[in-house]
């Protein structure tokens, strides 16, 4: 088995955030010592995801899950370590990143498809399938500012679903549209796995993760708390959650 995603000893630190010219000149900034500030956003992350399997990432808010996905996608660089992705990657970090409300659904498919890395020919060849999958039928030539948020999400998901990729990164977008469409998306993701596609999923939906994923990782304040088979990870995470509910300080201090 070859791994599609490989993450070796990855560390990530966020530098100072940019400031206006005023702060630069005056040189004052507030000391940030809330529980979200720490030296390393992620420390020493190691894992590999096999082709055709799904990998779940769980953890509290602000614990580094989305940072990890951004690193895998390549929109931010790691400070240490190596990340290797074998194959084409598409992100569902935000459905419809780059959609413009004044354009029609059809025009947005072209724009979004290209942003996701499809060529114009690929988009044209898949256009009917994308529209069919989204079930937007007659609304497809309306401007998407007239769409409901569910319709926009459906259009976004359909476009991604027809992008030829090997690895899909998903951030909390398993709940798309109504229950009928959600079922369709779930089915699509299962098929994607069966076609040797690889999934990396960040979610708080424990049931969906247990159903979909094979292995996973639980993060806590940038550390790996536990990793391995998804059932282990989820039960450990739930144990931590109940513990932290009782004593929130303890977990977060570190």
């Amino acid at each position, binding site marked *: 088995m070859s791994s599609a995603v490989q993450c070796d000893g990855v560390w990530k630190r966020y*530098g100072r955030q*940019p400031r206006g010219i005023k702060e630069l000149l005056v040189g004052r900034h507030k000391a940030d010592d809330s529980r979200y500030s720490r030296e390393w956003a992620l420390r020493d992350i190691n894992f590999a995801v096999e082709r055709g399997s799904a990998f779940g990432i769980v953890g509290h808010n602000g614990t580094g899950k989305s940072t990890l996905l*951004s690193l895998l996608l*390549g929109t931010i660089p790691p400070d240490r370590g190596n990340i290797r992705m074998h194959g084409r990657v598409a*992100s569902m970090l935000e459905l419809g990143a780059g959609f413009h409300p004044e354009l029609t659904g059809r*025009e947005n498919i072209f724009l979004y498809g*290209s*942003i996701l*890395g499809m060529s*114009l020919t690929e988009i044209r060849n898949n256009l009917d399938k994308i529209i069919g999958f989204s079930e937007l039928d007659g609304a497809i030539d309306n401007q998407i500012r007239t769409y409901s948020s569910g319709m926009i999400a459906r259009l976004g998901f359909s476009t991604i679903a027809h992008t030829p990729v090997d690895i899909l990164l998903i951030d909390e977008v398993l709940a798309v549209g109504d229950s009928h469409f959600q079922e369709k998306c779930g089915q699509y993701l299962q098929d994607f796995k069966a076609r040797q596609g690889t999934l990396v999923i960040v979610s708080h939906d424990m049931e969906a993760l247990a159903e979909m994923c094979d292995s996973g990782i639980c993060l806590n304040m940038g550390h790996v708390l536990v990793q391995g088979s998804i059932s282990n990870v989820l039960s450990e995470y739930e144990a931590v959650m109940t513990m932290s509910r009782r004593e929130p300080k303890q977990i977060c201090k570190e």
Partner: protein
Amino acid sequence: MNRELKIGINVKHFLELLYLLVQKDLKVRYKSSVLGYLWALANPFAFALVYYVAFKIIMRVQMPNYSVFLLTGMFPWVWFTNSLIQASASFKNNVSLVKKVNLVRAVLPLGSVIHEMVHFCFALPVLCCFIFFTGGILHLSWLWQLPLMVMLQLSMAYPLALILAVANVYVHDVEYIVGIGLSLLFFLTPIVYPVSMIPDTYRHIFEWNPLVALVGSWRSIFLEGNIDFKLINQCITMALIMSFLSIVIYRGGACKLGELL
């Protein structure tokens, strides 16, 4: 897959994405208006008319054929300014494209510059009509000179746009400074006045301004049908320096954009 093929596919995809982004900007700007794409012609026409009335009829500038002189400087300038203003905010205004998808980020400021270039190209026929009706000559050599100049200006404006767009992510004030800087630069460039009006004592300062050469080359083409090679060389030198700088800055600064936005 061999390397050349892969690069070929990437370049093709880059151009397609650029095309779609520019098309989006144009559609968003014109589609919902009553006149639609006619605005792309009506705008420069109204613009030319306003300047004609202001300087020829009200201010009565005593230079022969002043309105053509003015417009041949104004249209390239408007392209230059608008693209820099738009481009410097292009990363900040497209946060989700920078953070949530993996694309070649340099396409965003290029999209802004090309978008304004399209508008400039729409202004060219208007300018030609204006020259014709005020008694100027339309030169056949424009057919190759004008595209050349468009490319030249593009290669001067884009590197600068890229640098400003990256800088604006690090220090948010850049986009405001650009606005102020450009309005200052407008009067430091011989657009509303001829080069000959600059006092000799200050002339050396103007030689540092790359736009003097740019506007000068546009004028020599529009007014005489000639390419002024001395000015063109200055422009090319400037374009090369800016390109080099922009590559260094983009390489150093672009990887951090995702976390700074």
